[in-house]
Every structure is written in C-alpha cells, then in structure tokens.
C-alpha cells in the first residue's frame, strides 16, 4: 500500500521562475491496485513519481509504503521496495553489460553485495526460465550485451528487471512513449501481466488516453500539482476517451488522440 499525505514540491523557490509542481497532494493506493496517471505537461506527474522514488525530495508532506515512512529515505534505499521503468530505454539497463549481468544486478536488490559470485549457475537457470515467459527470445541471448537490443526489447527487459525481486511498488513513467505502436502494445501487455501477477501497487504515467482507460483499475488526472479527477469502478468503465477529453477540455496537443 502506498499512502501520500499533503505532498508539496516547488521548483526555483524565490525566483521569478518559481513553479508549483505538487500542491498538497493526497493519494492512497491499495495493495495490488494499478493506477494510470494522465495530465498535461507540467501537471506534476513526473515530479510525483520522482518524489516517490526519491530522485526529488518533497518540500513537505509524507510518503508511506506499507507502514514504512520513506519520505526521507535515500533513493537507492527506496529502490529495494520500488521497481522503476523510465521513458528513455537507455536509462533502465547497463548497456555495456550482458543481459544476464543486468538481471543479476537487479536480482540482488534485497541481498548483500559483497564478494559473492556475480552470477551463479543457479541464477542463470532461473533467469533463463523466467525470461522465456516473456516470449521475446531474450533467454537465448543472455550473454549478449544490452546495447545490442532494440528499444522495445530493452524496455521489456527493464520492466522484467523492475519486478524481478518482487517490489511493493512499480513506477512506470511513460515507459512506452519512445516505442513504435506495435512494440508499445507488447510492452503494455507485459505490464498488465506483471502488474496483475504481483500483489504490488502500480503507477503508470501515460499521455495516451485510451491506454489510460484500457489498463489498470483506476485513472487519475493531474493538473497544476493536484489530482483533479479520480476515476474508478463503474464511472471508469463508462468513460470513453472522447468523454474524457471533452469533460476536461484538455488543451494539449499530446493528449489529443483520435
């Protein structure tokens, strides 16, 4: 469970460029819930994720993961409980290392990192078996460097690495935005599978309104650092992209979809 209380964040405080990114935001995500987040550029979606993951430190407010107060925890410590996939396919993997080495690094999230062998035979077997479930053929390329993979394959791998050690929370920041439609679809299908098979919470930022409604069980719309709409249950089932656009008159190129 993720609980965010009165979270605020401003940038460039005290200058003419001062900007409110998060404005006293409250959000509770139940265990296993998959929330899609939409909103125009500058609405505070990414800042919200960055505050949750520890990249940014909030000005005020608290963040709880289960019963833990993670508000002041450094980024790498939170990462033990949080899986992340970035928009940029380059950001999620170590490009000059092999697929299995990347997996080994991700799999050690909750283990001590000392002079133990980086990858054991047992790890290899396990990785191969679990990778084969992705259906992308990556299990046969375990010793290849990640820089040889396409963007879509990398995002799939990053997603896999993010959930590998069973996090409590999965943060997806426009993780399909840089992919072609077909690949994006595939990665989204994987996202559904992972988000469903775990008891973790999932937050997914997207600029694609139909994706926002088609995936997950709850959709929130952000504007000026606040949540201005929280759709779930029947309201959400009855919502269409057209109605969503119409209702909130979202005047942003990126949000206008066919």
């Amino acid at each position, binding site marked *: 469970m993720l609980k965010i209380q009165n979270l605020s964040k401003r940038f460039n405080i005290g200058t003419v460029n001062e900007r409110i990114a998060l404005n006293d935001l409250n959000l509770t995500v139940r265990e296993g819930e998959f929330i899609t987040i939409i909103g125009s*550029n500058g*609405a*505070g*979606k*990414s*800042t919200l994720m960055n505050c949750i993951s520890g990249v940014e430190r909030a000005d005020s407010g608290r963040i709880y993961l289960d019963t833990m107060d993670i508000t002041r925890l*450094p*980024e*790498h*410590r939170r*990462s*033990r409980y*949080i899986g992340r996939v970035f*928009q940029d396919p380059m950001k*999620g993997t*170590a*490009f*000059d290392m092999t697929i299995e*080495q*990347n997996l*080994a*690094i*991700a799999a*050690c999230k*909750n*283990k001590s*990192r*000392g*002079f*133990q*062998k*980086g990858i054991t035979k047992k790890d290899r077997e396990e990785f191969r078996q679990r990778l084969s479930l992705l*259906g*992308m053929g990556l299990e046969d*390329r375990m010793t*290849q460097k990640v820089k040889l*993979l*396409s*963007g*879509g*394959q990398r995002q799939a791998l990053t997603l896999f*690495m993010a959930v590998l050690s069973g996090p409590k929370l999965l943060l997806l*920041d*426009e993780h399909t*935005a*840089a*992919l*072609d*439609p*077909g*690949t994006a*679809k*595939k990665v*989204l299908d994987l996202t559904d599978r992972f988000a469903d098979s775990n008891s973790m919470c999932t937050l997914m930022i997207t600029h*694609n309104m*139909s*994706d926002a409604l*088609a995936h997950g069980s709850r959709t929130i719309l952000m504007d000026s650092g606040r949540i201005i709409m929280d759709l779930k249950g029947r309201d959400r089932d009855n919502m269409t992209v057209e109605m969503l656009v119409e209702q909130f008159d979202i005047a942003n190129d990126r949000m206008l*979809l*066919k």
Partner: protein
Amino acid sequence: MFMSFTAVVGSVELGLIYAILALGVFLSFRTLNTPDLTVDGSIVTGSAVSAVVCSTLGSPVLGLLLSFVAGGLAGAVTALLNTKLKIEALLAGILVMLGLYSVNLRILGGRANIPLTQSPTIYKNARSVLNTPYSGCLIGIGVLILVIILFYLFLNTRLGFALRATGDNEYMVRSAGVDSSAMRLLGISLSNAFVGLAGGMLAQYQSTADINMGTGMVVIGLASVIIGEAVFGVIFRNMPLLLRLFAVAAGAVLYRLVLAVALNSGMPSTDLKLTSAVIVTIALASGAVSDMLPGRKKKKTILGQGDVSVRGSSSVPSSRRNPARSSSAGENSGKDGE
C-alpha cells in the same frame, strides 16, 4: 635503431610496472567512465610510502602493501570531493593532485627524493634469490598477474557488477538499490590504489622516490589503455573482460618499447614528455581520423562510448511480426519528458 638486449629487458621491466598503473587508469577512465587526474599525485604518494618503508623498516613487501593503501586513500579523497561536495570529477582530481604534492613532500620527510641504494627492495631480493638477469621481469610479471587475477575476480563479484554498472548507467544502478556514490568511492579508491602500488614498485625498481616523478602519469596510463585496446582490438573483435585487462597491461609494455625505440634512435630524453603527448594524441585521434575516411567503420572514442550499435543485426522487435491491434498507442513519440 636497434636496441641492445638490456635496453629491451629494461623497457619490459618498466612496462610491467606501468601495466599496473594502466589497470588503475582503466578502472577509472573506462569502467567508471570518469576522467581521474589524481593519478599524477597518487603515484608519487605510493612511491614515497614505499621508499620510506624500505629505507626505515627494511620491508619492501610491506612497502608495496602500504603504497597500495596510500594510493587508495588519495583516491578516496577525490571520490568524496566528487560525490559529497559535488565538485566535478576532473576538478576534484586536479585539486587532490595539487594537494598531494605537499603531502608527498611530508611523506618524503621534506626532501625532494629518497634514494634506496642502501635499502632492500623486492628487485634486489629477487636478484639474489633467483639469480637470473630476468629477475626484474619475473617479479614484474608475478605482481602483475596477481593484480590482474584479483582485479578480474573482483569485477565478477556482485560488488564488481554494481561497480561496472555504475560507469554504464547511474540511473539503473540506483534503481537497482545500489548507492552509486559508494560505488564511485570504491572504484576511484581502488583505481588509485593500483596506481599507488605501481608507484611503490617504481620506487623500488629505480631505487629512488622522487617528488616530481608523477608528471604526466595519467597520460602514460591512458596511452597504455588505448594502445593495448587498439592493438588487441585488431586481433580480437569482441574482447572478453579478462583479455581486455591483459590487453591494457600489454599496452603499457608496448608503450615503453615504443618510447625506448624513439630514445634509441637519437631523440633526446628531454623530449620524452612531448613524445608521450604526441603518441596519445595520435592514438586518440585515430578514431576521428578513421571516421573521416570513407567506407570505414566507426571506432571507439576515448571513453569507450563510441557508437558501436549494430543496427539491423538484431533490432527487429518480435512484436513487429504480430500486427499491432491498437493503433492508438505510440501516437506520442515522447520527445519531452516533464
């Protein structure tokens, strides 16, 4: 043009020591992707510590161990300036290098050099035990192989993986629960520990530690890395890590040999530094120059980030084969994150 046999042996002996330096530089420049200029100072620190221990305690091996530790401490200062105080890595290295000059003078007891002519060194010990003209080479090879094996084994531990990934991608490392600052601290310390060890060996080999011996050592280390990778890169297309470490070490020996040939062919020794700079420049420029030539493949750039993507070989995502159902996805090609 032809060198005497002793000159060749001498170059190899020296090259084997510089190989340890090159491995240290490889760790910072290549593995961590961080240009670290501490080296010019930390090599003197290592050599000063080694000389002091040899001349006062008479224990060359302890001297080497302590020069390893001392170099590591110097590196730690640079890494802390970089990660805690957010001083740019390049500048942090320069600052520490500058400060180390005074520290090194203190270690040397206020003198500009300590001669070891009367003190035991591992080279003297080896000569009396092994009783061959190659004792210097054998000692150098022994230490170097030990260093390479330990280094290689370390890079393949969990910790080593985290360290290597830090040089590749800090975002990934942090989201995998690794403290990237701690990895930088570890890596830069270890790098300079190798450099310190090389300094310690150098002092014992030359039977003197000198306050000014560090000038240009970064360049020499970098030259060795580049030469080794270039030469071995021609033979092996895809070098596994262990081979790469050996290539770097071999690069250092080659570099010494090239210099020896240059000196032997009549170049005054005062031109040594200029020659070093020119060799490195040529090695660095070879990538850019070969890019300009038509029909040539791109070469690696200095930090190993050269565009070596292999388009076409493997980049068809499997989803392409299934016609996409949803046409709405991917409308946003996402050029701007928030």
